[in-house]
């Protein structure tokens, strides 16, 4: 059975139809990549799945591990194990990274009926994960994303994912803005989390990322529809030919 | 560096323009200071019930209007002078003013040919086109503008009436509208600025003599700019005009107002009231270039410009945009405001105020958010030079029902020389947790870097300042209709003459 099952999913923003019937099945442990031209609706799909206000579902259904995802509020979805790495991470002045992570992790643990983590244990665990992502300790004490460079923000998103250990992670252009070394560090971070139960939906413009995070399936999203699906070779093909074929088709 | 470069390329062109314009205006600092020698009819000096009745009978008012004037007058008598303003307004001797002064004319002119040639000459000298084939002086290729010319207490001519009538648009003097469209006047007069609003509006309500009336019918986009040109000519005369503009559902109008007065040693009072009403989906753009005589270098003479301007955005999605360029008057005291009643209605206020020599100005706006998702935007640029003193005073108020209201305010002041003052007094009041208000203000002098940059490119100091000031005001000037933008830009140059060194 699929972990995430999207059927004929249609979404409007400001009364403008953006997603026009998306079908996508992501099984446990699978990595799917979505590529597509600017404005085709990739971020809209990720926001709608994450439950952002203003993204009005006008048709279709989404189930996550068998339950109706669309019934849940944004925070409930997250606690159920859905994670979105934002294309444009939000700055939170006055909230330190550590505080933020602690609140997020404890919210999830509480939901799972687990005890809150001991503060010391927590800090240790976070430091270790930050280190794996080449993030200096002082970044943990700073306010979330405030004054972070584009690449640092993306690394911070990856850190949050590593700490929260979601069942399903959607990465919206987590590779953009990363230098070559950082791209490798972030990909390693993702790959460390890969296992037979955890699934990923990777949105990207570059085949390069898919050299590191090798996908099981690749989809092309154009004008709010998935117009082609294939295996990892599709990404290579796109790199050569571009989207012209699909833009015309759509 | 790149932004400074862009500034200079863009600026060089307009520097040359400004310099040329300033040069073309000759040496006369206030070129509108002449007086027209014309036979006038005056009511006796001073104000009392009899004068109110006299004005009312001169205007052949209907009974209800006379009563309204008398009520206003009786309220006015008991009303104290306002005290909260920054400028120290000398005690005004209300009994030493003529409340009615009109060019003698046996019959009301039926066409321009019948208008006294002296009057036509006056407006020609002022650069105001009263002949329909002409356009505003000095602007080639500008679109046509319909003009209502108010000379002291009365409207002397309105152009393009026929063309406008074809669209169902009413554009005439208010005294005429009282007779031709009594239902509209009765319904809307005083509905935005009640006669008891403030001391000066109250006096205006009692003794107003003329002004313009505009009605744009449903769904009509007014095909040309409408304009009123106010001229104070006679000595010891107050001007109390009243303007009423009604934009019916889905209509649009752009309206311009200009004003000048002769150079005199004594102060003259101008206490106007302007009321705008925008119904559902209607838009009114109201622009003013105020160039009343400012007084001389020592502050002798000049107009007291105490004006009440207010717009009611009554309908949903309605919009009112005020733009003002204030360079004249000894004392200016006005706050063009918007009452945002209709859901999604929008109010805007764009202002450039320049005070030099001994001028004083206390000006700004009020944005009252009543409806849901109402938005307002305030951009104010103040320039103070010489021994002048200027205050921006603005109120943004969000009422409990105004969910989703937004305001943005930017107020910048520039000081030229160490003997002037510039003040910023915003009042920000919110009673709705979903409203978002943002106010920013800065005060500084002309940046030495900018000045040096211009000088090092060969500009003279005065030219450089005019250029930088024009750049400083650009955001506001851009909102003016083209016909006025040129005049306004020239005015900025002239108003600052002698402020350097």
């Amino acid at each position, binding site marked *: 059975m699929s972990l995430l099952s999207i059927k004929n999913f249609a979404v409007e923003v400001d009364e403008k139809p953006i997603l026009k019937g998306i079908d996508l099945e992501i099984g446990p442990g699978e990595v799917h990549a979505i590529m597509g031209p600017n404005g085709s609706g990739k971020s809209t799909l990720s926001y709608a799945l994450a439950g952002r206000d203003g993204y009005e579902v006008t048709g279709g259904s989404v189930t996550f591990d068998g339950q109706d995802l669309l019934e849940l509020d944004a925070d409930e979805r997250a606690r159920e194990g859905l994670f979105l790495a934002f294309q444009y991470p939000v700055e939170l002045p006055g909230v330190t990274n550590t505080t*933020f992570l602690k609140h997020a992790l404890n919210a999830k643990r509480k939901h799972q009926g687990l005890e809150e983590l001991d503060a010391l244990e927590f800090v240790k665990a976070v430091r270790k994960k930050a280190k794996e992502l080449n993030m200096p300790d002082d970044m943990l004490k700073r306010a979330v994303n405030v004054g972070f460079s584009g690449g640092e923000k993306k690394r911070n998103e990856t850190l949050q994912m590593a700490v929260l250990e979601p069942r399903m992670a959607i990465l919206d252009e987590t590779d953009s803005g990363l230098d070559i070394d950082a791209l490798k560090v972030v990909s390693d971070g993702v790959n460390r989390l890969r296992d037979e139960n955890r699934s990923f939906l990777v949105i990207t413009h570059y085949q390069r990322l898919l050299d590191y995070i090798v996908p099981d399936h690749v989809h092309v999203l154009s004008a709010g529809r998935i117009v082609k699906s294939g295996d990892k070779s599709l990404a290579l093909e796109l790199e050569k030919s571009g989207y012209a074929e699909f833009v015309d088709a759509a | 560096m790149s932004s400074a470069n862009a500034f200079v390329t863009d600026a060089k062109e307009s520097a040359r323009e400004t310099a040329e314009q300033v040069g073309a205006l000759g040496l006369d600092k206030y070129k509108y200071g002449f007086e027209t020698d014309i036979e006038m009819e005056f009511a006796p000096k001073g104000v009392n019930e009899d004068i109110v009745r006299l004005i009312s009978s001169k205007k052949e008012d209907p009974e209800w209007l006379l009563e309204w004037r008398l009520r206003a007058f009786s309220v006015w008598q008991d009303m104290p002078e306002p005290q909260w303003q920054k400028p120290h307004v000398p005690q005004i001797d209300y009994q030493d003013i003529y409340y009615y002064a009109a060019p003698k004319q046996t019959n009301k002119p039926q066409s321009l040919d019948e208008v006294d040639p002296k009057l036509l000459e006056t407006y020609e000298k002022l650069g105001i086109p009263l002949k329909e084939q002409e356009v505003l002086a000095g602007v080639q290729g500008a679109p046509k503008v319909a003009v209502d010319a108010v000379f002291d207490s009365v409207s002397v001519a309105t152009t393009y009436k026929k063309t406008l009538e074809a669209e169902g648009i009413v554009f005439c003097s208010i005294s005429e509208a009282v007779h031709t469209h009594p239902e509209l006047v009765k319904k809307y007069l005083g509905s935005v600025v009640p006669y008891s609003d403030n001391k000066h509006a109250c006096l205006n309500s009692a003794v107003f003599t003329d002004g313009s009336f505009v009605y744009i019918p449903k769904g009509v986009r007014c095909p040309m700019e409408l304009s009123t040109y106010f001229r104070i000519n006679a000595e010891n005369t107050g001007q109390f005009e009243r303007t009423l503009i009604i934009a019916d559902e889905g209509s649009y109008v752009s309206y311009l107002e200009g004003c000048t007065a002769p150079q005199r040693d004594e102060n003259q009072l101008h206490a106007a009231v302007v009321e705008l009403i925008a119904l559902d989906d209607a838009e009114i753009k109201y622009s003013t270039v105020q160039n009343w005589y400012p007084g001389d270098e020592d502050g002798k003479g000049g107009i007291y410009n105490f004006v009440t301007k207010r717009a009611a955005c009554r309908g949903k999605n309605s919009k009112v945009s005020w733009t003002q360029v204030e360079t004249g008057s000894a004392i200016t005291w006005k706050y063009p405001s918007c009452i945002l009643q209709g859901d999604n209605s929008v109010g805007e206020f764009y202002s450039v105020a320049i005070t030099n020599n001994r001028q004083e100005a206390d000006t700004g706006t009020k944005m009252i958010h009543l409806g849901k998702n109402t938005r307002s935007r305030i951009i104010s640029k103040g320039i103070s030079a010489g021994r002048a003193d200027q205050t921006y005073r603005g109120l943004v108020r969000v009422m409990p029902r105004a969910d989703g209201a937004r305001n943005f305010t930017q107020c910048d002041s520039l000081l030229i020389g160490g003997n002037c003052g510039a003040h910023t007094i915003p009042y920000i009041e919110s009673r709705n947790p979903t*409203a978002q*208000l943002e106010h920013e203000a800065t005060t500084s002098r002309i940046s030495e870097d900018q000045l040096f940059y211009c000088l090092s490119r060969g500009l003279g100091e005065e030219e450089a300042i005019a250029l930088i000031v024009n750049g400083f005001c650009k955001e506001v000037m851009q909102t003016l209709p083209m016909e006025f933008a040129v005049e306004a830009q020239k005015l900025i140059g002239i108003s600052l003459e002698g402020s350097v060194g």
Partner: protein
Amino acid sequence: MTKEIENFLSDLPTRREEGWKYTDLKAIGAVAEGAGWTSAPAARAQRLSETGPLAEIDADTLVFVDGNPVVSDETSDIISVMPEGIEIAPRPGRPLHLAFVSTAIDGEAFASSPKLSLAAKAGQHYALIESHTAIGTGNTLCMPRISIEAPRDAVIKHAALFDESAAGFTLSRIDVTLDQGAEYDGFALQTGLGLTRREATVTLAGEHGFARLGGAYVGRDSSHIDNTTLVVHNAANARSLQDFRGVLDGESRGVFQGKVLVAKDAQGTDGQQQHKALLLSPKAEVDAKPELEIYADDVQCAHGATVGAIDQNQLFYLRARGIPEDHARAMLTEAFLMQSLSGISDMAIRDVFRAHLTTRLGDR
């Protein structure tokens, strides 16, 4: 009762006066007409007690019980009680805590107007702590007036906490004069339930002076919190900074009237002013009047004021990480206020304030 209070009560300012436009004192008048304001008996002064969260900071402590000073051995040599007021010569380097405690119980209405003047020495550093707390719930009207003279290069750090009961009226005034190179760095945290108005005037009388006025407030229930400031630049090349933040819940009201006045000869002035408020309830209100009055041209002055709601993007970001909405709102609210605390240089005080803010935000 002091002459000052009598005069004040007989002619209470009304909202028609510009400076009192947003703060209504009718409730003070109502108490005067009812049981009436009295002075607390001197015997009360012996009831030395709880002086609030700042008590844990090690400092010389001078307690005012219902306005009456309690001079202890610890403080006797730095204080002289004179008929016209209390003169204080604080020890440089040693914090001095002025603790105003009100003990009035229901049915009592104590009014006081302690007058304090602090004399600093040139070039010395001082730390001043001020607190206003209540252990009773009766009516109190406290009108403290503190004046500080800072001679050349003196540095004064001042942290104040206002945490009165719902029946407390505090109308406090502080006047600071800074000579050449002197610094005043003040921060006020206001979390009381009654009516608090704090008028702070700082005059930069010498060149190169520096003044900072910071503040954070939490309005809850029907509290009324008013900050009225005036920073006067009378000398050239001085710098001032004002930074206030407030959160308003329930039916509370926040008022900020801040003014920067730059005199004609104060060239080279840098004056900045900022007020930010967050409205949390449909019955709360905030009124801000940040004012610049400037008579010198070589200045850099600016002010900003914002009033708003919690940022929706931030809220979504927190929720997308699994944090429930209420909790996310509370975090963002706290973060909003905490940012202003970073202006407090003394870490111990900052920690006390931080903890106190968290408690009071939790009490909403």
